[in-house]
């Protein structure tokens, strides 16, 4: 049987940069093929080239045979007919993929009228059917809604409805669930899988998340630095990864079913390097045992929250984003805080830092009540509690060099010049960046390096508690492992305590000693790390754990580690 899509010797280059090199891949009819790789490996560029949507500066050669027709040789007008009808695509960001000034019904109808030539009324009826198909509740009423009326998950459903409106033979999903919560993620993938079977279309799933691949894909192709390094059925890839990079990727990606914990195991890493010939290469390090003793149960916690409530003013009155929350963090402890977006976890971290005023309750730092301290009195205490932010691109001032960023922290806290210089160098060494980085600006660094700068900034005041607000969510799998290892090293060397906030249960399972589950502004469950994963008591905790995609088979190297 001839494959639906056959990519042969595809090369894509941009001025001064080769994005994809000698790439071969074939997608069979009605299968799910996952294209896996880290950011910058060329997977999204490949997807865009299938739609002929690359910017004009890109040079593409090779063959892209779709049902025997070479897409690259097609005139643009014929290509437009194929787009959306035979091949469709959904994107990562449901927030920006919909036009905010047109109703969702209108946008759906546009696709139908363009490709199917339906009348206005027929298009409207079909739009309602499609919304029903993607399980939007009350489709007849919602068809007139605008993007801002919908939640993130619903927007992605509408995007899927638009993509499948003309029953395409191939659906390309570029990181379709990365911006969504775990529970929503599971629903969207299930929907995609159902639609794939119903319409017998093929699904090209582009992702960095190996967890998804394990549950949903039939076959996997792994990409590294513009090349395909391995292609195998999912089961085989997970059991016997042939290429070292696939092995590294599997080792570095955490999974909820693994019993890995930072107090006993160091995560395996993939270190990216540039070889002498300018080629990107990598080095693997295996998981290794390490011992970080549990802290003694000291009497006074560093931080205590007592019945904290934080309200936001909204047009419809005050809304409690944090609703009666109590928590103790002891020296040397790592508290994991799990919850989905909008549950109030970021509001809580801002309240602890007194960037937001709590409306009720008290915050005690080293036994001292800081709930109502004025900013001037608070300033000397600020050095004890620091924060690492989620988005390393937004949390560094783009106009300052790394040196200025780090130095002004010390200057604000009144350190003399000579000592400042030494502390800056110590901090940059400690997070594993070269000293030359000091003169450079944030945009010159990769995501992982920027996060290291953010960590250096948080550590430079020698705090005792660091609040990590989704510190690895924006990073690639291999970088995630590096940053987690770094955080563990720093904890061991400086005796830090962490409040680690994340929506990613596998990360929290690795890093936390004690876990709090947050839902609708409240802690619904908390407990020791073993207890909470093995016997969750609350309904919501169980939902969260079940939503994590199951792996078809665990990676062998990790079995050895756990044993």
């Amino acid at each position, binding site marked *: 049987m001839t494959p639906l899509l056959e990519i042969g010797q595809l090369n894509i280059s941009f001025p001064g940069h080769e994005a994809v090199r000698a790439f071969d891949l074939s997608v069979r009819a009605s299968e799910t093929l996952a294209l896996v790789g880290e950011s910058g490996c060329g997977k999204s560029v490949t997807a865009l080239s299938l739609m002929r949507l690359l910017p004009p500066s890109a040079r593409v050669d090779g063959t892209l045979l779709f049902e025997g027709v070479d897409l690259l040789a097609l005139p643009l007008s014929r290509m437009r007919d194929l787009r959306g009808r035979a091949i469709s695509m959904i994107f990562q960001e449901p927030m920006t993929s919909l036009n905010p000034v047109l109703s969702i019904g209108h946008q759906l109808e546009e696709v139908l009228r363009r490709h199917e030539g339906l009348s206005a009324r027929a298009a409207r009826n079909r739009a309602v059917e499609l919304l029903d198909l993607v399980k939007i509740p009350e489709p007849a009423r919602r068809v007139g809604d605008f993007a801002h009326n919908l939640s993130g998950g619903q927007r992605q459903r509408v995007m899927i409805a638009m993509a499948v409106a003309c029953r395409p033979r191939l659906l390309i999903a570029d990181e379709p669930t990365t911006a969504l919560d775990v529970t929503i993620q599971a629903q969207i993938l299930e929907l995609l899988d159902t639609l794939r079977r119903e319409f017998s279309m093929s699904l090209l799933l582009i992702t960095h998340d190996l967890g998804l691949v394990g549950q949903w894909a039939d076959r996997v192709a792994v990409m590294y630095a513009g090349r395909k390094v391995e292609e195998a059925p999912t089961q085989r890839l997970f059991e016997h990864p042939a290429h070292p990079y696939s092995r590294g990727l599997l080792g570095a990606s955490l999974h909820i079913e693994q019993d890995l914990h930072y107090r006993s195991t160091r995560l395996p890493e993939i270190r990216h390097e540039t070889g002498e010939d300018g080629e990107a290469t990598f080095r693997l390090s295996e998981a290794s045992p390490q011992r970080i003793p549990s802290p003694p149960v000291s009497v006074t916690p560093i931080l205590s929250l007592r019945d904290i409530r934080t309200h936001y003013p909204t047009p419809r009155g005050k809304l409690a984003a944090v609703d009666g929350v109590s928590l103790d963090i002891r020296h040397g402890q790592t508290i994991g805080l799990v919850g989905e977006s909008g549950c109030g976890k970021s509001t809580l971290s*801002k309240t602890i*830092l007194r*960037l937001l005023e709590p409306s009720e309750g008290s915050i005690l730092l080293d036994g001292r009540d800081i709930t109502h301290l004025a900013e001037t009195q*608070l*300033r*000397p205490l*600020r*050095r004890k*509690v*620091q*924060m690492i*932010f*989620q*988005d390393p691109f*937004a*949390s*560094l*001032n*783009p*106009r*300052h*060099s790394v*040196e*200025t960023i780090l*130095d*002004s*922290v010390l200057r*604000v*806290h009144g350190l003399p*010049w000579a000592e400042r*210089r030494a502390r800056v160098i110590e901090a940059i060494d400690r997070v594993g960046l070269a000293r*030359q980085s*000091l*003169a450079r*600006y*944030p*945009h010159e660094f990769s995501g992982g390096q920027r996060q290291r700068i*953010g960590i250096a*900034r948080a550590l430079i*005041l020698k705090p005792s508690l660091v609040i990590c607000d989704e510190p690895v969510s924006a990073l690639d799998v291999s970088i995630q492992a590096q940053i987690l290892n770094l955080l563990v090293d720093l904890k061991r060397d400086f005796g830090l305590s962490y409040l680690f906030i994340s929506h990613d249960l596998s990360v929290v399972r690795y890093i936390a000693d004690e876990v709090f589950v947050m839902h609708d502004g409240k802690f619904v469950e908390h407990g020791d790390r073993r207890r909470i994963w093995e016997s969750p008591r609350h309904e919501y905790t169980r939902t969260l754990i079940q939503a994590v995609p199951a792996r078809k088979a665990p990676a062998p190297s990790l079995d050895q580690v756990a044993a």
Partner: protein
Amino acid sequence: MASSPLLPTLPLPGQTPPQRSPFGRFSPQIRAFLRNPAGVAGASLLLLMLLMACAASLFYPGDPLDMVAQPLLRPGQDAHFPLGTDSLGRDVAAGLVHGSRVSLLIGFSAVSISLVIGTLIGTLAGYFGGRLDDLLVHVTELFQTMPTFLFVIVLVTIGQPSVPLISLSIGIASWPTIARLARAEFRSLRESDFVMAARSLGYSSTRIIFHEILPNALPPIIVTTSVMVATAILNESALSFLGLGDPNRVSWGSMIGAGREMLRTAWYLTAFPGAMIVAAVLSLNLVGDALNDALNPRLRNTP
């Protein structure tokens, strides 16, 4: 003018890394500016004009409003008066050189005034928000509803037309543009993560405003400022053209106003001062664009 808030962003003395660039002694901002040919051309032209304004009395001692020769000499007709004379026998070249003083002085001082008022009000409104924001926005709107030029005329006619009064009037009439821009930038930047980080590190509001937010808010303000200097020069010209300028000082605008009646017979009386205004405005725009690129680390492409 715009450079004062940037000083804190310069690297600390003695910390500048060794550079192999020919402009190695300067900060990266200045080096980037010097690598931009358009910016250098604009800056040179502007510098030349400023020099001309400062040294006007050296080249043409005495009052440029004195009658020195027979009227309406055409350019090149008399070697002593290379650009000719006007209907009253005044030297056009002397007028251009002396006129640059008033035009440039008013251009820069008026914009400095609106920059100070506008940035201050926009910053306070955007950063602190709430009631202060409401109040300041209303004040800004109040000023904005008045047509700028009409407002300038009203202000100028209240007192005796003089260079400081004209600058002040133009400054007062044009700050809302800057204020609105600054407010919009501050409103979006104050919610950004790096400002959150600065607050959690215990930075004071003053430091956050000047050190963290202002450098990021500057690009649109700088571009607008260079256009506003040009507008201020043109406004002064328009005032002089209407006979509302300082009667004792010559400016490019007043020369155009005086030459207007003889546009068909003696075109050069309007064309030369007009060309000066065009050159000044052009050089300012070039400098503004180059500054904008030089201050942005992303566009600076340090070698």
